[in-house]
């Protein structure tokens, strides 16, 4: 861990894949130190010290969580309702970038949303990168690009490499005049005002990137999706907000965010060797002496992983990438002249976020051992472990619900975090061990369901029988209307009339 293991290259778009590095030596060293301590001081004393150290770490995170919760409880609401100041007054050239791979279920809704963004058309270029999709994503994008001049589609060849980072780096080349790159994921549906709200922060030359707020739109799909909805509420309305309010150190999150193109060029683009290119970029921006900002009102809606398998894969990737970033950047960040002591402390805590569940696992293990009279009491035990582990996050979640003005029934959904906490311990520990052992891993996209995609209808058609139906204006799939029932066709998609205007919907027939 002597130097960052991932260093972006000047030509990051064609950087080699991550050279997996093993850290087996460190694992063995940890084990040897533990064994030596047990041998020297006895198991009870040693485990008591370990338990005490863990309690101290948990206490620090407890205070951090509580600080964020209090900050958000006090200020978020006012920020959400604050009047905008000269929102249209600053409009640099923007490239909206989206990397798509096998996104046929959501890509139409995505493009519709992007084209509906409120931004001067002569200053916005939408670039959608079809990253060697094997489904109809490319064909759908081509259909859209025939009718929309603002849309540019880049088809990448299989094996182009770099995952999402590589696609974004390539896509940015199609908008050479862009001053700001705004990034969304394929399952996202940005609010029309999102771009204006994001780019307004670039008036400050010291800002390298801006993060917006993501909201789950398919919470009704499953109980897990509802849990993720609450998790995002807390994550964006409390945690991310608190990081900005207390430390001015929010994180760039990879979607619904904007980055200054000149900053990007200076840093060599998105890092194709990282599976969490967002965290990677956040840290490199901080190292470059610039700042990331967060706008709680720049909103887009995204799809949550609604089943356990997809959820686990997504969180595994986040954990793996985040831990990877910690190993790569903690030393240069601690030595950075651009951060003061408190900012370094917060950055360290941020980097260790995906290590905390590993510590929790160890803490639970020590507790169980104590039940069998193995291990002494922690030397540092200010608050019960359960309170340290749960109250902080639960306070954040509660404030998230409160600031989101969610109806009170949602309080019971907090129970869903208990199993997800257990899953997080297992998942994160798995990711940690894989990372330390150098097991190969590459960028894996999260599969979508497209279950919550609605047509935002604004055009009404009169059918042959005199009844009326509606379809999205300028939607290439709504070119003809032949009969009530199923029958608007183009590109393998049908609009099914199910009653009235509000109920019109798109169903895919591929």
């Amino acid at each position: 861990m002597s130097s960052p293991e991932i260093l972006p290259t000047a030509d990051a778009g064609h950087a080699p894949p991550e050279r997996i590095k093993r850290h087996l030596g460190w694992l063995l060293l940890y084990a040897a130190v533990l064994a030596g301590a047990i041998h020297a001081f006895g198991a009870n004393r040693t485990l008591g010290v370990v338990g005490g150290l863990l309690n101290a770490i948990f206490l620090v995170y407890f205070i951090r969580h509580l600080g964020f919760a209090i900050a958000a409880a006090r200020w978020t609401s006012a920020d959400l309702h604050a009047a905008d100041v000269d929102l249209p007054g600053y409009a640099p050239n923007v490239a909206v970038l989206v990397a798509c791979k096998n996104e046929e279920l959501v890509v139409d809704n995505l493009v519709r949303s992007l084209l509906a963004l409120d931004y001067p058309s002569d200053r916005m270029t939408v670039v959608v990168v079809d990253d060697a999709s094997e489904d109809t994503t490319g064909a759908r994008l081509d259909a859209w690009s025939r009718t929309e001049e603002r849309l540019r589609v880049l088809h990448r060849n299989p094996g182009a490499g770099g995952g999402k980072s590589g696609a974004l780096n390539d896509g940015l080349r199609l908008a050479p005049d862009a001053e700001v790159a705004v990034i969304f994921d394929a399952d996202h549906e940005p609010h029309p005002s999102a771009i204006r709200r994001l780019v307004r922060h670039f008036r400050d030359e010291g800002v390298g990137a801006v993060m917006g707020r993501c909201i789950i739109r398919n919470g009704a799909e499953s109980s897990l999706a509802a849990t993720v909805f609450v998790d995002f509420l807390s994550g964006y309305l409390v945690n991310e907000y608190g990081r900005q309010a207390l430390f001015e150190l929010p994180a760039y999150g990879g979607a619904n965010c904007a980055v200054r193109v000149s900053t990007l060029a200076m840093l060599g683009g998105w890092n194709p060797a990282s599976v969490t290119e967002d965290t990677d970029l956040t840290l490199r921006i901080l190292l470059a002496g610039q700042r990331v900002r967060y706008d709680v009102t720049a909103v887009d809606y995204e799809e949550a992983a609604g089943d356990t398998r997809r959820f686990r894969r997504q969180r595994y990737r986040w954990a793996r990438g985040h831990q990877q970033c910690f190993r790569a950047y903690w030393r240069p960040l601690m030595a950075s002249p651009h951060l003061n002591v408190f900012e370094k402390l917060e950055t360290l805590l941020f980097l260790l976020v995906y290590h905390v569940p590993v510590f929790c696992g160890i803490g639970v293990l020590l507790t169980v051992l104590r039940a069998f009279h193995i291990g002494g009491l922690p030397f540092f035990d200010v608050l019960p472990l359960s309170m340290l582990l749960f109250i902080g996050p639960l306070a954040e979640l509660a404030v998230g619900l409160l600031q989101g003005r969610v109806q009170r029934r949602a309080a019971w959904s907090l129970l869903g975090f208990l199993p997800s906490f257990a899953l997080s311990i297992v998942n994160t520990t798995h990711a940690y061990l894989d990372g330390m052992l150098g097991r190969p891993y590459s960028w894996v996209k999260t599969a979508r369901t497209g279950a919550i995609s609605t047509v935002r209808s604004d055009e009404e058609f009169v059918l042959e029988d005199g009844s009326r139906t509606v379809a999205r204006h300028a939607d290439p799939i709504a070119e003809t209307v032949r009969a009530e029932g199923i029958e608007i066709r183009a590109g393998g998609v049908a609009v099914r009339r199910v009653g009235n205007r509000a109920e019109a919907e798109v169903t895919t027939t591929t």
Partner: protein
Amino acid sequence: MQAFEAHVVTAAVRTALSTSRVSAVTAPRILIFRPHGRLLSATVTASCSSLLSLLGLAALSFAVLRRRGGHALLGFVVAGFLVALANEARMAASLALGLEYGKFWLVAFHDWAGTLWNFAATLGGFLVMVYLSLPSAERAEQNATGRHTAHRPSSWARPGLGYQADGEEEQKQARRTLAGLFYRRILPKPIARRMARHREAGRIDYRVGYMDPAQRVDAVRALVADGLAVHTASLLAVASYDEDPGVLDALAAAVASRQWEPVVTEKVAAIRLWARARLQCRPGAGQPGSSSAAASHGAAREEAGEAAPAPVTLEAVSIDVIQEEAPELGSLLAGAETSATSSPQVTAPPAEDVPARHEVVAEAPVLAELYDLPMTRAEVPGHRASRPTGDPEPGSADDAVARTGGMGASTSTAGTPDVSVLTAEVPVSPPDESIDAPEARLRDILGTFDEVAIARMAEHGTVAPMPNVLVTGAGGPAGIAVIRRLSALGHPVIAVDADPGATGLRLAARHAVVPLAEDPSFPAALLAVVAQHRPAALICTVAEELPGITDIAEQLAVLGCATSLPSKEAVERCLDKARFASLLAGRRMPHPPTGMFADAATSIPGPWIVKPRRGRGSRGVLALDTAEEVAAVMRSGADLIVQTRLTGHEFTADVLISNDGRPLACVPRWRSETKDGISVKGVTFASAPVTDAVLRTVAALELTGPSCVQGFVGFDGDVRIVEVNPRFSGGLPLTLAAGADVVATYLAEILVPSVRVAPLTFRPGVHMARYLAEVYTDAHGSEVGDPCLVRP
């Protein structure tokens, strides 16, 4: 606390099990008398108590939920009770197990199962606390799955509170609740009202956003009338989200009228600050006449017999500014007075004729000065003291101006010996006693204003920016002249024209292309331009556009764009030349004989001129010399009229009529040379018969605003009017150069409809020779420098 809890538990166990084998708490111990004489001594420790959990809940409730006020308190009380109850149950179960099965089970349950029990109880208590603190389904913004549930107008919607597809919004039904019944039926009225006020102060009333602008104006005034501290959140929401200028102006004015109210919360201070900023940016905003929505609403209210809100004076709405800027304003007024006093042309009505100050509260003094606007002297505070005493010398220039009511050629710079005679003979309407003569051109006042007062006010940030003005017909000479004049006055101009290549588009600060006036989409397109650029006023220089603009005048006003338009009937009388001729003939006014039929030439003296019944400029005009030719052309099927071709000297008079029908300017000029219907050489002149004929014609048409009247002075001296265009003329620059700033005056009439503007004077004998001028742009529309421009 732990001893108290232990006491409760032991008492409960003894009662429940009807046994005395469990002792009361003695010091920190509980003695348990098991069968066969065995004794268990259980020590009461901190872990037996729920105190830590209760403290944790209290801290959380205070730190992160307290914004929910009573809800959070109720949540904590209920949760605390449940947690304490659960802990008592754990202790009781531990004692019961110890009593029955011995020490192992007591310890096992208390320490291990009991720990989980306690954790579950604390978590449950926390969830109950959160549950009671969160808003009910009726008041929430989104449901448990993130779907938008708020009944909130889209215009007020903030992004991010729930995912919402179109048409997905759920309608919430009001319901009867116990709390509602309690407030209405049980609580004493004063307490219920006090609590309601407190509740309302933090609640945004989303219902307001669904109303139309006029209703919102009403609602806003009603909310303010209840007190700024009562509906503060709703008022702030209107200030933050509402985009209708009329509503915002009404709110600002209403807030300004309640400055006596104590500033009891930060929100009240915020709404006061907002209103202050609003009124600084828009002097006179929110006062009667500042927007159609507010004005029409006020009228409706008066018709309904309701008491209208008290008019708001400038002193009331910007008292903070006045207090801060008093010395500067004083010097400003003193400067104006000095200038007015020193003017040689000042004539003033007797002091008793000056309207009282409260009668002119609708005017905006700052605006008046900025627009180079001669106005009723009562509008200028302190004017009474500055008026010169005594009448002007008989026979002097002042006297002449006074007798003409101020409208006519100025004698001070005429330079020709007969000018004064001509001026003296101009038969215009009798002097309006309520109006001062235009003592000095406002330019004089402006000079002082600009150099002294504006500089100081700008330093303090109190000068309002010059209003944006939208000018239509930017491709025509009239449009170009208006654009150039407004730009010279410092107004940012938004130019529109149907021709993307129109020169005027390149002379304005901003521009847009709209369809032709005949296109049905013209009004909508113009509205879109206004909605985008939000001009404060619109000046139309294309007569054919007037009916369409009149149709959307209310929408324009709602968007903050003031207009002053002639009636559609008056415009139609001008555009339809046959109808125009008929009207003038009916009034026995001088007009060339006109016919509409093929055989008209037999009854109308020749030579003739045939032109389209509804034509523009000189398009389609034919000069014919024989009746046969006339008959042939008239049979062509086109809608034509035929007139006697007049001989003599052709003239055009630029006329400006005030909103209330008073002539403000009549500047005749000879059309010495014309090219394509546009005067390229001309000279202003003063003539009583011409002015008389022109003004009578305009009066017959019931026109207001600008117009250009074309006619001939025959060799026999007769004046005949040929046509009237209800717009500025192409030769407008000559009128402006002659000193009659009809553009600024018309704009002032638009922006401050209630102001009484004094008539304008002009210099006869000013010659105009026009030449072509160029505007250069590159491929991207950026300006390219004029190589012939003389640079200082």
